[in-house]
């Protein structure tokens, strides 16, 4: 049973690797949707650890994603000469570069998560939601005002040396006279995205199903009882928050290195809400439900493209209908009480 889960994990990585070999033949549009599905699964599953399993309502997940995305693209852009000279530009060198960038993005998000989490996790419910929302907005506004990473124009993983000054520029401006031109390659592919999908599913389910991980659920159910049974509730809340932030950062890195263009508006309040919706729709604390919700909510807007301007109305309507018919989420459970004898 326990060995099985390890085998399943390793074999799924092998499958992902094999599928990746054929990814060239996938239609680019579908390919994009598939990558977004993967990224959204990572985001939703990581938020599920905070909101679903630990019961802390965080509304700032897009902020952590932004930190991971921006930091990693900045690294890939400005440290490109260093990475290239150290690891080379072959497939292997690129892989090492990307792993470093991924870990850096995730770690940065996790550190910020720690910084935000320690003071704000004393708050409960709505108050925590507002605090985390405020934090995500601060991140976005700060990014919007930082010229090194493109400010409100957005950040393309591109730089030029002109007159000895290194600066990020819009690609159109480069046509004339770049002395040195470098563009970050599209590191994110099917393999990397779904490798992390596999990792986070394995990671979170191992954690939650262990004795230690049951502590997260006990914090959600009853903090006072959990404390009285020797659970350091603050520690559990913060570690859920930091873990969630780490994977949101990873998702940001993957997103950044797929699009190769980041805009502060990609990480606004609506993005955070979108992730929360995935978690709620899937059923708080249901791994499979949240994954399916992430897939559905990524595909749904694409299907609705045919009705163009009514798209968001129908999308919102469907959400309302789903919530009315299954308030506990697609795969959420309600404890059924036994009939009294």
């Amino acid at each position: 049973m326990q060995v099985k889960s390890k085998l399943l994990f390793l074999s799924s990585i092998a499958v992902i690797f094999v599928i990746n070999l054929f990814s060239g033949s996938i239609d680019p549009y579908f390919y994009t949707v598939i990558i977004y599905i993967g990224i959204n699964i990572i985001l939703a599953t990581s938020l599920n650890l905070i909101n679903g399993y630990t019961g802390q309502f965080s509304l700032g997940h897009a902020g952590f994603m932004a930190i991971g995305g921006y930091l990693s693209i900045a690294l890939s852009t400005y440290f490109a000469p260093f990475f290239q000279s150290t690891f080379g530009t072959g497939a292997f060198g690129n892989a090492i570069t990307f792993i470093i960038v991924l870990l850096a993005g995730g770690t940065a998000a996790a550190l910020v998560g720690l910084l935000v989490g320690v003071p704000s996790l004393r708050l409960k419910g709505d108050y925590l939601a507002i605090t985390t929302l405020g934090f995500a907005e601060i991140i976005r506004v700060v990014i919007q005002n930082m010229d090194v990473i493109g400010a409100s124009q957005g950040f393309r993983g591109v730089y030029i040396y002109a007159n000895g000054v290194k600066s990020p520029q819009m690609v159109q401006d480069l046509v004339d006279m770049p002395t040195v031109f470098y563009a970050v390659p599209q590191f994110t592919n099917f393999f990397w995205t779904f490798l992390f999908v596999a990792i986070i599913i394995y990671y979170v389910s191992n954690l939650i199903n262990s004795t230690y991980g049951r502590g997260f659920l006990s914090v959600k159910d009853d903090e006072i009882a959990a404390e009285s049974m020797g659970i350091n509730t603050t520690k559990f809340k913060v570690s859920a928050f930091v873990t969630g932030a780490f994977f949101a950062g990873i998702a940001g890195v993957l997103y950044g290195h797929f699009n190769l263009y980041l805009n502060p508006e990609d990480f606004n309040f609506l993005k955070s809400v979108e992730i929360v919706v995935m978690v709620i729709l899937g059923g708080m604390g249901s791994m499979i439900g949240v994954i399916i919700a992430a897939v559905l909510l990524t595909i749904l807007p694409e299907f609705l493209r045919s009705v163009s301007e009514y798209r968001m109305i129908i999308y919102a309507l469907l959400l309302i209908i789903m919530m009315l018919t299954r308030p506990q989420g697609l795969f959420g459970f309600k404890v059924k009480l036994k009939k009294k004898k």
Partner: protein
Amino acid sequence: MRFGGLTCVDKVSTTVEDNELVGMIGPNGAGKTTVFNMITGVYDPSDGDILFNNESIVPYKPFEVSEKGISRTFQNIRLFKSLSVKDNVRVSFIKNIKSKYFSSVLQLPKFYKEEKEIDKKIDELLEMFDLLHEKDEYAVSLPYGDQRKLEIVRALATSPRLLLLDEPAAGMNPTEKVDLMNLIKKIKDLFHISILLIEHDMKVVMGVCERIFVLEYGKKIAEGKPEEIRNDEKVILAYLGDTHHA
């Protein structure tokens, strides 16, 4: 203990010896549960001190108090509703386990070993309290009496040296109460721990406790052996009222 200007528990001083079963009784609102909350660190007493093994436990948070070896149950049942019976007990083992965050994620060999040990201990405890057949049910779907028992099991699983039981027999019928009291006696001897229990039912307390103290309006009005308490005038007054005006 004061809440704002209201003094809830005032100058209550008592001791619980090793492996002793002490009862705390008193009319509604006498401050019994508040005493429990002060001991377990839910409230910090405004004045005074609480010693456990000659160490003040006032500055500790509830989870630290639990680490020191004090465990409790709750007057209004507080089980973990999204967890099974087994997992409710499992949570109590967390404070002592060695495989914490990362070894749980990586599932190292020692993790499996420890999980198996915990599984075994949980089964033993549930067996002892005749709850084993319900181990995979959700805790809140158990009958009321079993939920009370499960709370005691969960508290015992933290391997306490002092167990605080807050009205363990509340809502039970007379036969169930007798069974429970025998069980509590058994727990005390089997686990060799001290027990402090709150109970309203005089018969129950008199039958099981070695020593009793009585609270009224936050003050201790009597303390002694059950038979002494039974004949104590102040206690009779508190419980039955003044005979002259009755």
